[in-house]
């Protein structure tokens, strides 16, 4: 059941302050070398493998942590999509700053919002408001995404006692508290783990040993560490939720961050597009600017279309969390798989335009290379692509049979002018039912009469692909529904994710009254790019489409507007 669909009220547009303008203004023009929180300084910090204190100060002063606190607990988090848009200025400048400063705190907090006691929730809200960081201590190198096999143990004696170790954990040294995922049962089932929110200063001093920092090729400013626990006694009230509910809680709570993190990462492609467009406008080759070469224009236009498509996808998934919190898990996994994949592909293509400039860690375009180094960690962190697909696969047969009937989505799903109900964390659920609102909306869209030859051809292709997917998913044998799934089954989940993106693009474009998606050529480009990922066509934009789309890009670059859906003023 979609909740709150009728409770929403159309408003005139985003109210002031709901977008990223506040933070954009505070950070100023990143291309200005004199800006102490601009690219020059951020890149220098990256070279030093450190975060930039001046940039963290900006976030402190803005009260960034309060963004992570639901409004019901006194914070500024009302809508997840606006939360992301408000934070995107950080990722436009430095993903490592975003991750290193705050995103892992958000990941820890969502678990407490989802399953913590009222006391824990109020304490979390208080400590975030005070600017404290929380480390999310889940990852064990030996088990990676297979976290049900993690071995860190928690035993209850007089207090809880932890044994084991966690590795590659952001901020584990400087955070005041840790959210630890530990085993309280002996099996590998979903009820054998529990969550503990532990304040270091309240736990025993003995039994906790910090590990040296991990250096990574990208996100070099993040302080990734680790810890070893040996009979580390932690307070009794550390347990979050019921004993044995840890995996359940995490899988529910992380639906939120798996939709949000890729939405933030779009800021990286936004910047990359600005950088490459600047380059194309000034660099001369063979008597022309690079921007005069059709290949460069087409490549830039395609990357812009990809960015818009992914912006539609994650936004709808994030809004779905509010509208149908029990039905959003599969969509959120699809976002976490597809968005980083598309971002990486787009960056590779754009890097070809920069040529050797892409390879330099100095000069006017150095931030592009940094983005290329940072992006893989966005893809790997917080469940890698294969793990996300694997979490989709088991649901495909049931959804294909019963969830892909045409059901009109609530207007608020795709239309950002509608205010959303607050996110009901407690209602987040592990996907189990048969409802699949984004796919159902696609079924509706594909039932509409198709106009225009080119558009019809694409919609026919989507309809064909959707029908084929339904048939193949319905027939998926049980052995293919788990980790032993073959490559062909993984392809089904990939195609499913792309079709969800198609659904959201059609949905957003249908109701759009402003911005690039009002332009039919842009919509055509977006759909054509997605169609290629489904095996239909080459994805190369026809000249007429490319020219039109490219003109949007250059106009935004000249006017200092984001390349994202909202086209908000940036870099000023």
């Amino acid at each position, binding site marked *: 059941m979609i909740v709150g669909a009728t409770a929403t009220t159309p408003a005139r547009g985003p109210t002031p302050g709901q977008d990223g303008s506040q933070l954009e203004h505070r950070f100023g023009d990143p291309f200005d070398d004199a800006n102490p929180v601009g690219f020059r300084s951020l890149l220098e910090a990256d*070279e030093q493998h450190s975060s930039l204190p001046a940039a963290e100060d900006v976030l402190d002063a803005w009260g960034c942590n309060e963004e992570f606190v639901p409004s019901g607990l006194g914070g500024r988090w009302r809508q997840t999509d606006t939360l992301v848009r408000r934070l995107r200025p950080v990722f436009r400048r430095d993903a490592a700053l975003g991750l290193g400063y705050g995103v892992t705190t958000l990941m820890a907090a969502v678990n407490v919002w989802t399953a913590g006691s009222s006391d824990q929730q109020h304490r979390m809200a208080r400590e975030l408001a005070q600017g404290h960081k929380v480390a999310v201590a889940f990852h064990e*190198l*030996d*088990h*990676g*995404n*297979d976290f049900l*096999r993690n071995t860190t143990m928690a035993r209850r004696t007089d207090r809880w006692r932890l044994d084991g170790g966690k590795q*590659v954990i952001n901020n584990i040294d400087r955070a005041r508290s840790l959210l630890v995922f530990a085993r309280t049962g002996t099996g*590998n089932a979903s009820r054998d783990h529990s969550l503990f929110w532990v304040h270091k200063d309240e736990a025993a001093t003995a039994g906790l040993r910090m590990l040296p920092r*991990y*250096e*990574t*090729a*990208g996100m070099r400013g993040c302080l990734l560490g680790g810890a070893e626990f040996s009979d580390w006694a932690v307070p009794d009230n550390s347990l979050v939720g019921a004993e044995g509910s840890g995996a359940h809680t995490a899988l529910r709570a992380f639906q939120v961050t798996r939709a949000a993190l890729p939405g933030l990462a779009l800021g990286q492609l936004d910047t990359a597009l600005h950088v490459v467009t600047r380059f194309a406008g000034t660099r*001369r*080759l*063979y*008597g*022309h600017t690079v921007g*005069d*070469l*059709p*290949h460069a224009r*087409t*490549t830039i236009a395609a990357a812009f279309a990809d960015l818009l498509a992914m912006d539609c996808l994650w936004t709808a998934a994030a809004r779905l969390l509010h509208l149908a919190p029990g039905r959003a898990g599969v969509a959120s996994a699809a976002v976490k798989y597809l968005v980083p994949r598309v971002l*990486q592909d787009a960056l*590779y293509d754009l*890097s*070809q335009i920069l*040529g*050797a400039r*892409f*390879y*330099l*860690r*100095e000069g006017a375009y150095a931030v592009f*290379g940094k983005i*290329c*180094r940072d992006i*893989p*960690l966005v*893809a*790997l962190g917080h469940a*890698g*692509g*294969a793990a996300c697909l694997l979490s989709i696969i088991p649901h495909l047969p049931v959804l294909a049979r019963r969830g892909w009937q045409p059901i009109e989505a609530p207007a608020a799903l795709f239309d950002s002018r509608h205010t959303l109900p607050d996110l009901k964390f407690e209602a987040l659920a592990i996907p189990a039912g048969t409802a699949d609102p984004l796919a159902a909306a696609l079924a509706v869209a594909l039932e509409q009469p198709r106009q225009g030859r080119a558009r019809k051809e694409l919609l026919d292709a989507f309809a064909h692909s959707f029908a084929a997917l339904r048939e193949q998913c319905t027939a998926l044998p049980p052995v293919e529904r*788990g*980790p*032993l*799934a*073959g*490559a*062909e089954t993984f392809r089904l989940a990939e195609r499913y994710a792309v079709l969800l993106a198609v659904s959201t693009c059609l949905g957003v474009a249908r109701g759009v009254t402003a911005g690039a998606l009002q332009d039919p050529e842009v919509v055509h480009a977006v759909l054509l790019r997605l169609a290629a990922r489904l*095996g239909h066509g*080459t994805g*190369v*934009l*026809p000249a007429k489409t*490319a020219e039109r789309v490219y003109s949007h890009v250059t106009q935004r670059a000249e006017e200092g507007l984001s390349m994202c859906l909202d086209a908000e003023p940036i870099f000023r």
Partner: protein
Amino acid sequence: MRDATALAESLERHLGDPNDPDHRFSFARSAELDRSELFPGDACRLLTDWGMQHQYVPAWLGGELTDFQAPVRLIRAVARRDLTVAIAHGKTFLGGVCAWLVEPTSRVKALARDVLAGHPVSWALTERDHGSDLLATEVRAAPVPGGYHITGEKWLINNATRGRYVTVLTRTHPDGGSRGFDVLLVDKEELSSSAYECLPAVRLHGIRGADISGITFHAAHVDDDCLLGEPGKGLETVLHSLQLTRTLCAGLSLGAGDHALALAMRFAAERTLYGRRLLDLPQARRTLLDAYADHLLSEALVLVGTRAIHDRTEEMSVISAVVKYLVPWRTDATLDALGQLLGARSQLVADFADGQFQKLHRDHRIVAIFDGNSLVNLHALVNQFPILARKARAQLEAPATPEAAERLAPDPAAAPFDPTRLSLVAQHGSSLLGSLPTSVRALADLAAHQPSLAPVAGLAHRVLERTHAVVAEMTGHRPSRHQVAAETFLVAEEFALCCAAAAALELWIAHQPGTTGTPSDPLWQDAHWLHATLRRVLEALAVSCPPSPQVDEALFDALTRQTGEGWSTSLLPQRTAEGISR
């Protein structure tokens, strides 16, 4: 002449097991130098001590280079340890080529002697504002009595600071044009200290220890006899040289692929996920096998492409572009896929295998950029579309005769390389692409007697069909100097893929080693590797192919044994140091 395999094994033996941190050229040492961005001088000296530079100089100038397979294999062997070292040392090959292709003057002979003695040579083509646009070269060589005065800056030049010699592309006619440039050989030791200055090394995404710097000349005087080749022919010399170097660069990609496959296989065998070895999860295995098949496709193309320097010299303008475009690009994609398999470990700088993967992943990105990037190479193909399409139509329609099939099995000894046969345009089209009907027919004939070959013969037939379609698209192309449509680049990509398939087919037909008792046997049996590589080509051309469990099993068997027992991940049996030291 020693054969390339023997040479590569000899070098491997000399360098020792790279997993042993006590070796001068170990993975651990390379990682450390990369972290501190220091030049790998010890490793380069080790290569010079062994005599790698002898393969950089043609036999007619006193070196040992008679077969270009040798330097490719050696560069690959070094690259699988450390791309920075391969690029730093191999640069001398690039620097020297211009001199080997022209009249061997006493200057050229002296240069050859110095290369053999271990002096590095740098190749200064690019400039800050012009990149690959060589016609825009601004560095000026003004004729003066007895020689030239060189003025201007060359930038992003490998070994510009460390190289004793620099071969410099200069503008000798103020108006430029195709006859307005010359290559001058500069011996920095002969210049006064005020005549030039080296620019600081640039900080890079990868190959962080390499000396990628620049050099500025201030009316630097060089003598008349430093001119390489006839006056006004510098650009042509450079373009001819690039046909060789672009082909040889692919050795870097093959080495990176070898290295990545070894790391991924080791990890997948050790890693347990969901209660199984990662290796045994079907999706992970698919990733590994696709990566391996792509690697073997690249190798087949490089083997045939390198041989073409000798026996299809006139076509190198096409073949070098196909190789330089396809191999680095496909290898980048392979490394991305293997990186995802490795997960967090693909990003750790020190905590997994000395951070080898993240280093090679970053390092390798340079290969698609330097010496002509992907777009430059696709452009080189597009420019030749009219003649390629015209010739291809005739070639594809010619009846496949037994005599033509005979020609697919070339003389095992490489024909001597004749630089005068190099040409800016492949006037007779691509005989590599043109060999397809003959190869496909030959395979079909074999399949008629050996039913196990029927599936691969079917794939080959589909490649041929697809090639017809690609040639038809090429035919429709209207040349336009710089306004090449994006779709046209796509056709060039497809053309390159068809050439790669043609190379794989030709290699398989010409070279069937029989049973060798090595881990590569299952690759050759029933044309398993050919099947796997043609499938990958067809998939890239959007033609879906049925799965083939036998092929998968054979490739997995070969890959497991090659990476586990110290063999190169190659179609040709060659031991690595890890295998030799067992």
